[in-house]
């Protein structure tokens, strides 16, 4: 194969591609990959035609529902999901940002009740292009530069 990747191929599972390099670890956090028993390989600062440099994650024997994986669109809006079976890409998907984000991101407002008590945060996405999300509780807006994973 001419276009060989620097991360070894998997037989069955999911490849998450086109992740911006600086958010690789946020994606790992959002998907809670540290709790997975599966074999996971990832690469960062790989060459990419689209992004210049990119990150990639390969998770063996694991497949994702849209609901589970769409959350990463918050930090990696152009990420692509390839479903692999027997070394073949059998499905390609793009992530789509959900209308509501529950329990992943901290509210940037230090005076918000969600930063004082153990409450799952809830945000409504009010701008998809440059992410802006409105806190269901304090009604303040957290933007993409202020996103911190809970």
């Amino acid at each position, binding site marked *: 194969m001419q276009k060989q990747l620097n991360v070894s191929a998997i037989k069955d599972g999911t490849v998450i591609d086109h992740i911006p390099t600086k958010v690789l670890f946020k994606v790992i956090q959002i998907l809670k990959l540290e709790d997975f028993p599966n074999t996971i390989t990832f690469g960062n600062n790989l060459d990419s035609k689209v992004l210049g440099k990119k990150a990639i994650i390969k998770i063996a024997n694991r497949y994702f529902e849209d609901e589970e994986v769409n959350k990463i669109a918050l930090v990696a809006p152009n990420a692509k999901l390839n479903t692999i079976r027997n070394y073949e890409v059998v499905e390609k998907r793009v992530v789509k940002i959900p209308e509501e984000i529950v329990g992943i991101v901290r*509210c940037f*407002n230090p*005076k*918000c*009740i*969600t930063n*004082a*008590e*153990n*409450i799952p945060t809830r945000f409504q996405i009010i701008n998809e292009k440059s992410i802006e999300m409105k*806190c*269901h*509780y*304090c*009604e*303040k807006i957290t933007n993409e530069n202020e996103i911190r994973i809970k």
Partner: protein
Amino acid sequence: MNKKNLISITDFSKEEYLKIMELSRYFEENPNQSLLKGKVIATLFFEPSTRTRLSFETAISRLGGKIIGFSDSNSSSVSKGETLHDTIKMVSNYADLIIMRHPLEGSARYAAEVSDVPVINAGDGANQHPSQTLLDLYSIMKTQGKLDNINLFLVGDLKYGRTVHSLLMAMSQFENPIFNFVAPPELAMPDEYKLFLRQKGIRYFEHLEFNDIINQADIIYMTRVQKERFIDPVEYEKVKNVYILKNEMLAQTKPNMRILHPLPRINEIHTNVDSNPKAYYFTQALNGVYTRMAIISHLLNLK
């Protein structure tokens, strides 16, 4: 049956605003009631606000209800580290309705989710204070006989003032309002509210001072320009006298014009305005009792 709460002014529809107006008038004419007989209302003030608490407690007493609660968190279990969740769970077992004020933003929305009984937000930090807005609406309704076609001057701190933001949202539900924003650049109305008005096709104008245009106003809503809001103290010194309303300025104003203020006032309305019949801020505060009677009755489906 679905439990009703009042957390943000936008929780109520225009129809509900009008119902609250009608009920407020009814309670003003018939202030002594027994609608809350046998009912217990909790007033939980996690931070002190004597003015708001007395207004709510007067409303409850006028409706014939009993009050439990605390007036600041030092005298409650909160100071022993109890979570808001647990306090609300406990109190919602005791009371038929909870009125709460809390320094953290979003606390009232969260309490409403935890509570089995209706919750009224009496202020959550800098976020919302919807009963203030409803009493402002009632004051406009009473003095102008309508809520449509009102030329409303909002003066002072339009950046941080939550009362002016909520009033703007509420008044934009009515026909053909005109907003005049009078503020220093540092405290100008935030873009999100101006964008909201443009999207709704509502007219607004921005001014740095208001001496020359004051005669257009139906309502002048004054707020305080606080020194702490300015990064540069020199800027504050420059503008501090621009946003003070004095009796001399009122000579050419419309006969129906009235001056509102959420109180407490510091110096933004000169005391020589107080005896002018156009000064309405003390009556406005009294209106709060009737409006709060209306809100409680509405949420408990008593009227």
